[in-house]
């Protein structure tokens, strides 16, 4: 079976998205990737790393801005016939019954009696017996995703692509389905060669896959590929499993939160990660409840946010000097402690002082001070950000800065005129 040719290969794949006013956002930056046959592969990364975009490029749904995709050594030019996809929100046709939905997955040349047999087989495989003539809106989320999986399998694909397939389900159902998908894959009746699963859940990646491709954001790129050799069946409580999770976790944090000397971070003009004041305050509260120190992984569990979001909030809190992040821990600073114990007005004052120490905020503040009219427009500011940080979403960055500054009573934003100005007491 092993011919030495990878099942697919990405060469220098780059994806750029057009933003407002002629600016571009680099979603994926020259990705090179080879995947061997007979493997379950997880694409793991924080939100914004372009996991789903990468999956759509692999299937041929999206054409990359530049670079090529090869399937079994052949250049791929359109949607790949040998691949099927399972979607996060199921993507079922509400006006078709369960079996009609599955029937849609069958290739047109198959004759009707054969098609009926295939549908029955697929229904059998995912355990949907008795639900054949029910409409999707009448069944639970877990059942819907079973329909999605059956519809994908019925076409006998070589590669099954899954885009966060379990994230819209409750924890128990997800657990159950993960195992069933693995059973189907290892049973080989399906004829599947590979599964590619997009996820932001580290345990899910470790539980299901042989190979974990770890992506980093801004711009999306492959940071590391981890060969997961844990034997099946995998026990999520075993120490080997937990150790693997920890290792992956370390790789993710090391790439996203490099331990640079703090002075360097503080003087460089760098973007502010997306976070709101209430998120930062909430993070401090959670830290306070946990003796002032928490591992990022536990933190994301505690605040029930995905890993990427948690990191953004922690990094933003670090920028204003309320926490420090040595390796993958988050700990209180003296200032953070004081901030938490302060009353509303003191908090605002402290926040203002800290915000002005961030080079980017200072630059924008100075832009306003030095302008003729004492105001700068939303558009000008966003263009400035887009120019400085071509890999960032300038719209989001603008919003983050404005929201933090509004709280600190540093800058005023008139959403009618879309202009930034100074609050009079700061002039």
């Amino acid at each position: 079976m092993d011919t030495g040719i990878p099942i697919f290969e990405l060469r220098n794949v780059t994806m750029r998205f057009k933003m407002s006013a002629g600016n571009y956002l680099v979603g994926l930056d020259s990705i090179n990737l080879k995947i061997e046959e007979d493997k379950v592969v997880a694409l793991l990364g924080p939100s914004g790393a372009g996991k789903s975009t990468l999956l759509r490029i692999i299937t041929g749904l999206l054409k990359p801005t530049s670079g090529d995709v090869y399937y079994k050594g052949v250049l791929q030019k359109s949607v790949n016939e040998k691949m099927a996809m399972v979607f996060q929100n199921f993507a079922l046709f509400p006006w078709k019954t369960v079996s009609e939905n599955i029937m849609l997955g069958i290739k047109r040349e198959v004759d009707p009696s054969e098609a009926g047999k295939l549908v029955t087989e697929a229904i059998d495989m995912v355990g949907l017996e008795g639900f054949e003539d029910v409409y999707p809106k009448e069944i639970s989320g877990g059942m819907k995703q079973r329909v999605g999986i059956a519809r994908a399998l019925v076409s006998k694909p070589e590669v099954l692509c899954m885009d966060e397939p379990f994230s819209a389900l409750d924890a128990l159902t997800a657990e159950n389905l993960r195992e069933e998908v693995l059973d189907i894959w290892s049973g080989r009746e399906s004829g599947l060669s590979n599964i590619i699963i997009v996820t932001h859940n580290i345990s899910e990646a470790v539980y299901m896959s042989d190979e974990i491709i770890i992506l980093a954001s801004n711009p999306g790129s492959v940071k590391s590929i981890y060969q997961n050799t844990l034997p099946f069946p995998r026990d999520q409580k075993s120490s080997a499993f937990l150790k693997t999770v920890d290792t992956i976790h370390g790789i993710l944090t090391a790439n996203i939160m490099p331990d640079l000397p703090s002075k360097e971070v503080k003087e460089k003009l760098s973007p502010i990660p997306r976070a709101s004041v209430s998120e930062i305050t909430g993070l401090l509260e959670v830290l306070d409840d946990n003796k002032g120190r928490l591992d990022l992984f536990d933190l994301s569990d505690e605040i029930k946010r995905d890993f990427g979001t948690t990191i953004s909030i922690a990094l933003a809190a670090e920028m204003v000097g309320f926490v420090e992040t040595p390796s993958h821990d988050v700990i209180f600073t003296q200032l953070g402690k004081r901030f938490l114990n302060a009353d509303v007005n003191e908090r605002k004052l402290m926040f203002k002082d800290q915000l002005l120490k961030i080079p980017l905020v200072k630059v924008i503040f100075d832009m306003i001070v030095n302008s003729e009219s004492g105001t700068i427009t939303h558009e000008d500011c966003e263009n400035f950000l887009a120019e400085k940080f071509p890999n960032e979403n300038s719209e989001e960055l603008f919003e983050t800065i404005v929201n933090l500054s509004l709280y600190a009573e540093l800058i005023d934003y008139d959403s009618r005129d879309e202009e930034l100005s100074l609050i009079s007491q700061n002039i």
Partner: protein
Amino acid sequence: MDRVIEKKILRFSLYDLVVLAILALLVWGISLLANRWTGTITYQASISMSPFALIGYTFLSMSRGFIAYGFSLIFTFTYGYLAARNRYAERVLIPVLDILQSIPVLGFLPGIVLGMIALFPHSNIGLELASIIMIFTGQVWNITFSFYQSLKSVPHDLTDASKIYGLSKWRIFWTVEVPYSMPGLVWNSMMGMAGGWFFLAVCEAFTLEGKNFMLPGIGSYMAVATNNGYVQGEIYAILAMILMILAIDMFFWRPIVAWANKFKMEEISSDEGEPKSFFLDVLKNSHVLKFFRELLNLRKFQIRIIRPDIKQALPDDKEPGKVGNAIFYSVLGFIAAISAWKFATFIGNVNFGEFVKILSYDGFTALRVYAAVAISIAWALPAGIIIGKSQKLSKRMQGIVQILASFPAPMIYPWFVLIFPQINWSSILLMLLGTQWYVLFNVIAGTSSVPYQLKEASKMLKFSKKELWQNLYIPAVMPYLITGAITAAGGAWNASIVAEYMSVNGKLLEANGIGALINVFTNSGELNLMALSVLIMSITVVAVNRLLWHPLQKWTAEKFRFE
């Protein structure tokens, strides 16, 4: 640095110039209006065919449209509020609204004209008001329905919150209920305004009991030009109409749409880009208006300080008791019986032959109406899907289609009739001209509501083009298509008044249909026959809606909705 300052000053003066020019135009227009309204009554204004006179006529027609729109808003706020907030009123008002909607403009004409002239026998005010109210009947019903539906769906937490803060009902109305209804209100107002222009010619030039009435305006200018076969004049009138619609769109609707966008209840803001209005930018940047805005803000602020709301709104959510119901229904039954008896005596002894004629003509018109709807669906379904599928295309087409749709089709009827002189058949085409847009609009809206993931899934499932339409787009637009067809059919029924009867080049064209019949009875003053025809037509429209369309709409909405 100097250059920057220069630019600022230039921008300031340019924006203000635009605003001042518009103010000047308004002042001139108002003086024109005052002249017209205070003049002694002239039933038949002489219409000058000079294109320069048309400028003034355009302004007069426009002022009628706007005053009618003002009435529409007042009516909508009171009627819609009563229907939504009082359960007894709702049971009467909503069916009545449904019936009113199905009555063609000529059905209102005799009552309004005779009543208004009796009220103001010596000045033009009566005639003007009559014309305005007729335009109002072309605008108002959908606006009211939309407002009522929005009020019914105001989230409870919003009203509960305002009750906790002790807001009076009046304050809740303006700070919660109206803003919440704004997006639907704005959209339906645009459609309503367009509906009002549709019957402009009828509202400005009509015959009642053998007497001709003529009010200066684009509609009457067009009517005279058509009747005399003065093609140049027809072109002038159409140009004036287009310019007026474009101007209203740019200076009135676009700023309002851009402004109303802030009332959308959305958790996540969409990427589609907010509606932009050049004129709203001008207004925002004009210092003249900034001054007024500040003044207004100051005022509002003061009022808020002076009037603390201590009075608490009493909840009136008690379930109606059996006694209440009994009283309600017996009063209702009494009123219904009296009106039925009054109506019967008014219609009087209609002979059987006439009754049969009205019924059969009603049938002919029904055939035309549904033929027009079928043709609309035949072309607008594929066209709408093609447009709606592409975001770029639908964005570009939206504006164009909107303008096309708001152009009153009756203005170009005479030309169509010259090409297709068989009015029994060509009237189908004429109905089509005005009503196909409703189908198109709805199909476009339906297509763009298809979730992105389903489109991707279709690609992964390698659907052929035919399968893509069969499995995805056609089912997805079904509920929208039905809504569009209902609106189109309603519009076509009303349009039969102008599509089945017209005078071109001094010649009278008349189709065998109930629309033409209503015209004939109005002209000859056989008001009892006219009332009977209008009644039969309304019953047909309401019955078809209740028995066919509404069940169909419910079924498609249930089966084809996305979760």
